[in-house]
């Protein structure tokens, strides 16, 4: 099997795996429809209402995703990493973590490469922590928890990321 078809097969497997969970939930609905059709209908209506509630934030999510993909490139993100925990390295790692998108396992090979190139443990730990701040998901988060909560949690998340970076630098010294 050549490399291209192996990649396609892996992609198909990943796509198929994504559907396991929703199919299982739908199967539960199927079973409940047979046992308690009235309650299953109420459950579906509840889910429908929930979807309507977050429809607009979801549109905003797509718009912000598009803007980030248009103006931010992965190569620029990795270029922001510092080797040590100086102010510039901290700020750049925080920014890199916040603007990075996609599942974390996509970033691991890149982080491994960066580490081999000499990137410090602190900046990498900061990057991994600040991925918890998702600018493109802010509309959904605000819809659920409100501006005040989101602003406070975002500020504390960034602060905690720096604390994590400092701890990692201390505990991983010489490693």
């Amino acid at each position: 099997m050549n490399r291209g078809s192996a990649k396609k097969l892996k992609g198909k497997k990943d796509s198929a795996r994504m559907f396991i969970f929703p199919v299982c939930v739908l199967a539960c609905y199927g079973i409940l429809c047979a046992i308690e059709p009235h309650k299953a209908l109420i459950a579906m209506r509840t889910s429908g209402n929930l979807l309507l509630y977050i429809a607009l934030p979801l549109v905003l999510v797509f718009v912000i995703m598009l803007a980030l993909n248009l103006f931010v490139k992965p190569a620029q993100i990795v270029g922001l990493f510092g080797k040590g925990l100086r102010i510039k390295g901290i700020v750049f790692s925080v920014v890199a973590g916040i603007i990075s998108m996609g599942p974390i396992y996509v970033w691991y090979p890149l982080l491994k490469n960066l580490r081999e190139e000499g990137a410090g443990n602190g900046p990498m730990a900061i990057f991994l922590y600040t991925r918890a701040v998702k600018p493109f998901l802010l509309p959904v988060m605000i819809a659920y928890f409100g501006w005040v909560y989101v602003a406070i949690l975002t500020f504390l998340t960034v602060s905690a990321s720096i604390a994590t970076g400092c701890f990692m630098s201390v505990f991983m010294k010489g490693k």
Partner: protein
Amino acid sequence: MKIAISSEGTDLKAQVGDRFGGSPYLIIADLDTGNFEAVSNPGSLGQHGTGVQTIVLIISNNVKTALTGYCSPTARRHLEANGIEIFTGLSGTVEEVLESYKKGEIRKTEAATIDHDPEKRVVDKAILIHAIQRSGNQFASMLPIFFGVVLLIGLLNTFVSRDFLAALFSGNPVLDTLLGAFFGSILAGNAINSYIIGGELLEYGVSLFTVTALIITWVTVGLVQLPVEIAALGRRFALLRNGICFILSIPIAIITVFIVNLVARRFL
């Protein structure tokens, strides 16, 4: 000035690689000192993300110019965005191509200059289409699990009683926060799902401490991805980082709720 040439082998007699991202080696030559080194091209592995690693390798080596047979539009965009010139359509040995470059015999191809004025609009359109496709793929990839979560919440809302959830959580902020952090650590997936689950748990009367800890650890602690993180960054780094993030999630959740309550009492 450093130049990277895609290569089929490790010396100057090797043929120039047909594809920038797919050639087995990159020869990095320093024009000032005359030295060169051959490095393995991570892009030749053809795995997800390795193309970006090739670009990172080029940038981290301070390369200013890349010479190759062919370069994909995406790689070209990344390279040019980082100030690296790229010359394509080249063949022969690495040594011959390098000499031609030194003599100024290599000129940029049409594609290489496409980012400049005359065709700018065409390229802008291509970038926009690429960004829409990429965003569409990212968005679509989170939808199946997202819909699953929404459907599951409908079920939980209908079939699980508030009393049951109240029994699950003790009412003690520290213990409930720990429980939220634990659930967040073992659950994985797009963060949007943690917001929806958290929002619904609040409706059920679960405390904001628990929900906040769940949201924080959902992304920062990854027990499911731990083997991958260990493989990429080492056991000590992965265990230490996840441990620190778990422990930190407790005070962060408590402080967040404390400040939110304070702001609500004072200003809202």
